[in-house]
């Protein structure tokens, strides 16, 4: 599957991937990180969090990691990490958004729209 097929990413999916590109995390840690990254704007309840995770898994963007950090003693916790495809998809999405921002900036600064 080419990364373009899953674009554009939904807001929660984008934040999920962004949180995971820093390394593996478990569910609640993802939720907290997403809140930080978005300055508290994106708040995921438990259900939203795991439907997003489920979707990302189905699309092959993330997977459950086989290893877990040694300092975590809660053995039942599941950790997630980005797949290579997920990393590509995130990069493409950021490019796409970057392009959009460029266009929008130019338009707002008064240059004639093309």
């Amino acid at each position, binding site marked *: 599957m080419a990364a373009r097929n899953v674009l554009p990413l939904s807001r929660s999916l984008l934040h999920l991937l962004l949180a995971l590109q820093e390394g593996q995390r478990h569910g*609640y840690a993802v939720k907290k990180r997403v809140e930080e990254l978005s300055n508290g704007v994106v708040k995921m*309840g438990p259900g939203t969090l795991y439907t997003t995770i489920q979707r990302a898994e189905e699309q092959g963007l993330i997977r459950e990691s086989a290893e877990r950090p040694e300092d975590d003693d809660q053995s039942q916790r599941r950790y997630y990490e980005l797949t290579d495809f997920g990393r590509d998809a995130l990069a493409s999405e950021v490019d796409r958004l970057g392009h959009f921002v460029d266009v929008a900036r130019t338009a707002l600064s008064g240059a004639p729209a093309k």
Partner: protein
Amino acid sequence: MTTGGGSEWVYRLLLRGLPRHFRARFGPDLLEVFREQRREPEYRGGVGSVRFWRDIGVDWLKTMVAARRSAGGVRGWSSPREVGVDGTWEGTMDEIGRDFAFAVRGLWRAPGFAAVAVVTLALGIGSNAAIFGVVKSVLMEPLPYGEPDEVVTIWSSWTGFPKTWVSENEYRLYLTGTRSFEDLAIWNENDVTFTDPERPERVLGAGVTPNLVEVLGVDMAAGRFFTEEEAMRADSLPTEAIVVSYEAWQRRWAGAPSLVGRSVEMNGRLRQVIGVLPEGFRLPTQFGSFQVADVFYPRYVPRSMVESFPEGGGSHGSFVVGRLVANATPESARSDIEAAIDRVRSDFGAYPPERAFAPLLFTVQDDVFGAIRPALVALLAAVGFVLLIACANVANLLLARGDERAGEFAVRTALGAGRKRLVRQLLVESLVLAVVGGLGGVALAVGGVELFKSLNPGNLPRIDAVELDGGVLLFVVAVTVGTAFLFGILPALGAARSGLHDRMGGRGEVGSGRPGWQGALVVTELALAVALVVGAGLMARTFDELTSIEPGFEAGRTVTMAVSLPTTRYPDAAASVDFYRELLRRVEELPGVESASAIRSLPLASQIGDWGLDVEGYDESVHPRAAGDWQIASPGYFATIGIPMVDGRDFTWSDDAEARSVGIVNEAFVRRYWPDQNPIGRTFAMGGGPETTVVGVAGDVRHNGLTAEIKPKFYIPVTQWSVVTGGNPTSMKIVARAQGEPAALLSPARSVVRDLDPSLAVAEVYTIDEVLTAAVAQPRFLVTLMGVFSGIALLLAVVGVYGVVSYGVRKRVREIGIRIALGAGQNEVVSLMLRRGTTMIVMGVAAGLALSLLMGRFLGSLLYGVTPTDPMTYALVSCTCVGVAILATWVPSRRAARVDPIRALKMD
């Protein structure tokens, strides 16, 4: 509900509604995130709880839809055969989950219907949540005492005093002559002043026996309470010990830990703070009052019986609280104290029968909440009615919608959906409506509670503590589920029952459009609404009666404030009189002041008690003993507050300590003691004091309450108080009349006091209009809320009538078309349509009036000047309700008359 533990089961239950595959994979992870989220700081406290469950609810609804979409296969509702084939609980839950997603989408596609239903339910659930929240905080939380069930209060009653103070002798009698109490404590209240010149403050103080905290079962927040030794030697100690309230500690000393052990200046003398009472501590008499004791000082009362018991029991001015022994009940304790009183009756000849003395005993819970309970129960019933009406309305909407969806149901039945399956699907739809309505209701309730607080009826105990906590939310969940069932079951069963074959044909048959259930629901709604409107009408009449009572004085343009003088600096009456005279002179000089005066007890703002009298020419061997409510007044008081002088003259400053002792009495005094005689020049004496000559008669004034009996009252000039009683009038209320806006006087009057003596504090500063407003605060509060609820009820009921009639018109368009084609006139059509509506209305209103008659007696204790069966109210309410309802019928009926027969007949 401060941790996840108490509420986790609710979430577990919610999870059951999610698709099985999703739950099987993520269930434990969801719970863990739920728990972590519950601990986040922004979700702490009452408001936090509300926010938390709102967020969880929204998240859950989104998940319902998203998890299913993500499952890949199933979109929309699936054929009934397709799901639940395994027949297990899990399978069924999964099906219900599917029903939910389907219901959400279905309602999304019918936004008009969904919005009306949700708003209706939100009104019903919200008003219930708000009132339940208040009832829970006010009535259901135990009082902050240890084992509050064992705590009782003791009072006295006399003719003219249904519930009043206890004397120290009675306290000693109950302490020694009964077996029902582990211990009894006694206290009295007094105004005291922190005389620190930096920040003088007048507060309420209480002189309490050292056993008070044990009797009430209270732990100190800091330091300790008094010892018996401290109480006994209080006067001889160089610095008397005091205990302060938690609130005063925070307000005055910013919660400084070093306060315990520190010396503070009170009433001009240094006292040592030895302890702080816990947060929210109140004496049992102070739950409903604005003024709460901030300072406690020790009071010594010997724990032994008096040698000779006085005839009247002694001076009544204290409050008594006790703790029952393990095997005593309030009833047994009551007969115990009654027996003790009977003993002093026979042993000492105390309490002659004509004074009708009786001791009273209440559990502290009854004492604190007894007065407000009927009002809250009435409100709870009112919101219950509103909810029932809302349910009936939504049920009607669903019935109508069910008819429109008959084709859909028929197709599904044809495809093999069982009746159970359809009923469940429809109930789930109801539940979704109820849940969304419930969320809206919570939002309304948050606003409602704020409204409630702003309407504070004045004597509502613990109103500040009202919040929407976990218990209220649990109540909302229960009400929501119950509501969904209540309004959903009828339409669900109805829709499932209707046969396949009359539905699939689908042609609107000429018929009456299902009169049965819809009509019954509308009749019920109307009946409930009428009963509520009658209740509100009776409250409105009560309020009207109360506000039309003449208080006997002229409230407009007058202000009042309280000043008390410490005896350290004003040791005798001469010093106090000089101070007040100078103060009044300076206040009168202020621009905009018409006159200024001083009085001991302000009518309707404080309670007044009586003093035994010897009245000239009044024979106590044939009549009850003479007594009168006592007042101390400065010259000019009557003119300032607007009490008319009926006869004789007012006091003057020349009525001083050297002059003949004079007094003024009220009209009730003359009626009781000197009927048909000229009172001017006659005399009375206060319990053994010098003879006082009456120089004037003043008009009667309502004092202890707008509806309280007007008793004989006498006024002694402030200048002669010490001559008559030997007392020092240190605590007076200043009353000033303004030429213009009275509130403008408050601040300059304060400055005058400060200029005269900077260590004095001024308290209870308000306009007398505010005093009058406070006197009718509770009826105003009730009439406002009953008005709001009955308004909502009537509106919903009328919407119900309108909906059913206009639905009937829609269903009968073909029939009407035929009638018009055959020559029926407009009026005939309108009256045909009106007839059915009118029958419903008449039945509904009649049932409502019957219901009101049944319920009226529960309102009895809340009414004044109007009987629960007041014909005026009933007639007015009937006319209004019938009128509004007929209007709601007439509008769609008119539409029927304008039906175009050609179009009607061509209609599918």
